[in-house]
């Protein structure tokens, strides 16, 4: 097993390499030149000699005048020292920008994932126990309906009707803090943040409930049929104990392995929710970077996210194979 882990860890490098190369090529192929964009922002269509020279200067500044492979080489070299370069837009180090934006996204996603698990797992269990009954059907429909509602739609509806203006005014309409909350104590700050988080977290959470609870349901159903459950029953334990203790624990296994796969979501953020709620997280930052052709930021974020994903995949495969010894490591890579 140790050699397998080592092999996978080493394999991360070529994969990462592949990802960075593809990202690099794709962003350079996309029309739009960051130097031109900056120069042009002030005057649409102006391209007189002075401007051309300025664009050249900017390109030199950004290192865009060098041939592509050289640019890539420079970036890789910087990467080794964990230097992700400076953003084109405001010249701040990419790492700083990520450090600012990541905690917000991570916070939102961690809370959301936690809530999804908290709510979805019991629902899945209930659904499995009451398979094909009215309760199961009702839960299924409700969950699928929730899944089918587009995030931005729900967000706009919630903000309009619950966040003030002409209708109810229960929640804040955007952001993560009220203005001036710094003047108050720590408890007020906590309450204020929680209050602001309710709507965005809700929007991030409701869609994931369906998937996870279905997985849990299938997992439970599978396990309930196992032989050893029958054996436990034969021993005379009451049915509910049987279900709870054995089936539940075993059904959690695939669910837990899923969690590792959720690691990349922590960095991905949700572009749409962040846009609507004016939250400056990773999703927002990356979206803006793409629109502005801010190459260093794009490369930095994609690389980091890829690293986390690869790591998460490895963890998930390991857990899966570990937990079910019938599956060999190779097979787990599909799971």
């Amino acid at each position: 097993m140790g050699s397998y882990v080592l092999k996978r860890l080493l394999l991360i490098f070529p994969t990462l390499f592949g990802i960075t190369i593809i990202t690099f090529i794709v962003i350079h192929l996309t029309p739009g030149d960051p130097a031109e964009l900056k120069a042009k922002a002030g005057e649409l269509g102006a391209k007189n000699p002075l401007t051309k020279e300025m664009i050249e200067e900017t390109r030199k500044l950004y290192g865009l005048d060098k041939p592509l492979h050289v640019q890539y080489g420079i970036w890789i070299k910087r990467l080794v020292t964990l230097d992700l370069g400076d953003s084109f837009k405001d010249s701040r180090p990419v790492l700083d920008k990520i450090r600012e934006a990541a905690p917000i996204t991570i916070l939102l996603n961690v809370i959301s994932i936690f809530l999804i698990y908290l709510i979805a797992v019991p629902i899945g269990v209930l659904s499995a126990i009451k398979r094909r009954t009215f309760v199961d059907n009702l839960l299924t429909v409700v969950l699928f309906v929730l899944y089918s509602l587009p995030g931005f739609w729900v967000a706009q509806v919630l903000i309009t009707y619950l966040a003030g203006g002409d209708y109810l005014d229960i929640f804040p309409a955007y952001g993560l803090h009220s203005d001036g909350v710094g003047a108050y104590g720590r408890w007020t700050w906590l309450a204020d943040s929680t209050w602001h988080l309710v709507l965005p977290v809700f929007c991030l959470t409701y869609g994931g409930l369906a998937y996870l609870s279905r997985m849990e349901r299938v997992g439970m159903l599978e396990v309930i049929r196992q032989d050893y459950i029958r054996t436990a029953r034969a021993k005379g334990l009451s049915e509910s104990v049987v279900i709870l203790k054995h089936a539940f624990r075993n059904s959690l296994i695939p669910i837990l392995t899923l969690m590792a796969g959720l690691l990349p979501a922590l960095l991905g953020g949700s572009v749409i929710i962040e846009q609507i709620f004016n939250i400056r997280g990773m999703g927002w930052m990356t979206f803006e970077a793409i629109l502005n052709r801010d190459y260093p930021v794009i490369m930095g974020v994609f690389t980091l996210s890829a690293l986390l994903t690869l790591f998460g995949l490895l963890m998930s495969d390991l857990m899966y194979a570990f937990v079910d010894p019938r599956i060999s490591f190779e097979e787990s890579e599909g799971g």
Partner: protein
Amino acid sequence: MATITVVAVSFGACHLEQVGRHPTDWLVERLRGEPDTLNPLTSTDAYSSSILDNIYEPLLQRNRDTLELEPLLAESWDISEDGLTITFHMRKDVRFTDGTPATAHDVEYAYRKIMDTKVDCPHQRNYYRDVKDAKVLDDHTIRFTYKEPYFRALEICGYTPCLPRHLFEQEEDFNKSRLNREPIGTGPYKFSEWITGRKIVLEKNEDYWGDKPKIKRRLYKFINLDSTALIELKKRHLDLMGLRALQWVKQTNKPRFKRAFRKEKYYTPNYNYIGWNIRRPLFKDKRVRRAMTMLVDREKILKTILFGLGEVVTGPAYVNSPYYDHDINPWTYDPAGAKKLLEETGWADHDGDGIRDKDGISFKFEFLISSGSTFADQLSTVLQGELAKVGIRMEVRRLEWATFLKLIEERDFDAVTLGWSLGVETDPFQLWHSTQADQGSNFVGFESEETDDIIVKNRRTFDLDGRIELMKRFHAILHDEQPYTFLFCSPSLVVIHNRFDNVLVHKLGLDVREWTINRAWSEE
């Protein structure tokens, strides 16, 4: 556990009502986006200019009612006989907010930086293209010399800002100076703080040399969605914001709203248009362009999707300026007339495929719009429908800004819709001179000897009536040629909280600095 959370949250929610509100002597304004930088030379976005106007001051300002240039940091000025030399005499009592006196050296420094190619401000440099040099004669006198006489010379030189040279020079790279995040100027407000992604705060400059403003503190909050901004306004978290037409007409009329807020509507120099790429065979003939204009029902569009807020315009000057010829009537919406013109120019359906053609080319083209604009979206579909009825196939291509810009740069488009924001004085050189067709802002490629002449002559004409005459002739030519289908001049729609008094609408709009606060005002 869940119940505890809910209780805590609701408890907090009630208590926090207070937290969101701000003191009455602050003014909270909404900005749609966050400035990139607060450096007056390198900043290129619209958001920073309103903030910077409160911090940095130039030599002259425009009177909001008479539109004349009047003294600001410069007490007086002399212009030479030939118009080429302008000497400004600065006030002696101006200081930066760190106490240092402001001198002519600071203005000269700004000029030098603008012309420095290492400084990231090509758009500014363009304006100073015809300036020969700027010389400091003494601590409070600076002289600008022009290469050629230009009627805007006074304005351009007069708008040179006064930068704190002593602070900027301490740093190596002007583009990356820390003053870009913490500006220090001579103006009525001084910078207080900038919380990335949230807001910028300005405080009243207690040592300001001129009339101190009454409002102690000004906050600018960045809220990207218009719908969210309106909600914040209604929650009294904002005092001032711009509205879209739809919000103005449909969402700001309840009695409760009207008691707390006032709405002001006023025009600023701007217009939007459809630009036809004259280089393309389709749009070479001006009769075809005229036909296209006749297929846009501007009156109807204005009345419906713009809710009647705006005016149809026919030419390149600001509709409320003396340069605009109101005797020129717009080409009316006339599909029959358009069809005739198309037939006249040889565009008819020769091959029976339902699309007009000529010499083997089908009348098919692509219309470019930028993905941020709902109006462009609406306009393009309306136009598409109208053109289809007369046998013209138009495809709409919606692009995000970077790609959109690129295509325009490369003149790789058939037709596009955009808008221009104008100054009080405009010099059509940049937009309309033939030399600007390949390299400048004349991206539709309009060229005419007569207009070139007019433009060049206009630059040298210092007499207002002379310029008016030239510009009216210019207007007439463009009306005949239709390089653009001129669309509308749109008003600014602003909403202001009622506790502010002395809110006057000048020709140039609102001037927050003269507002006062009525502390006794209450919503009942």
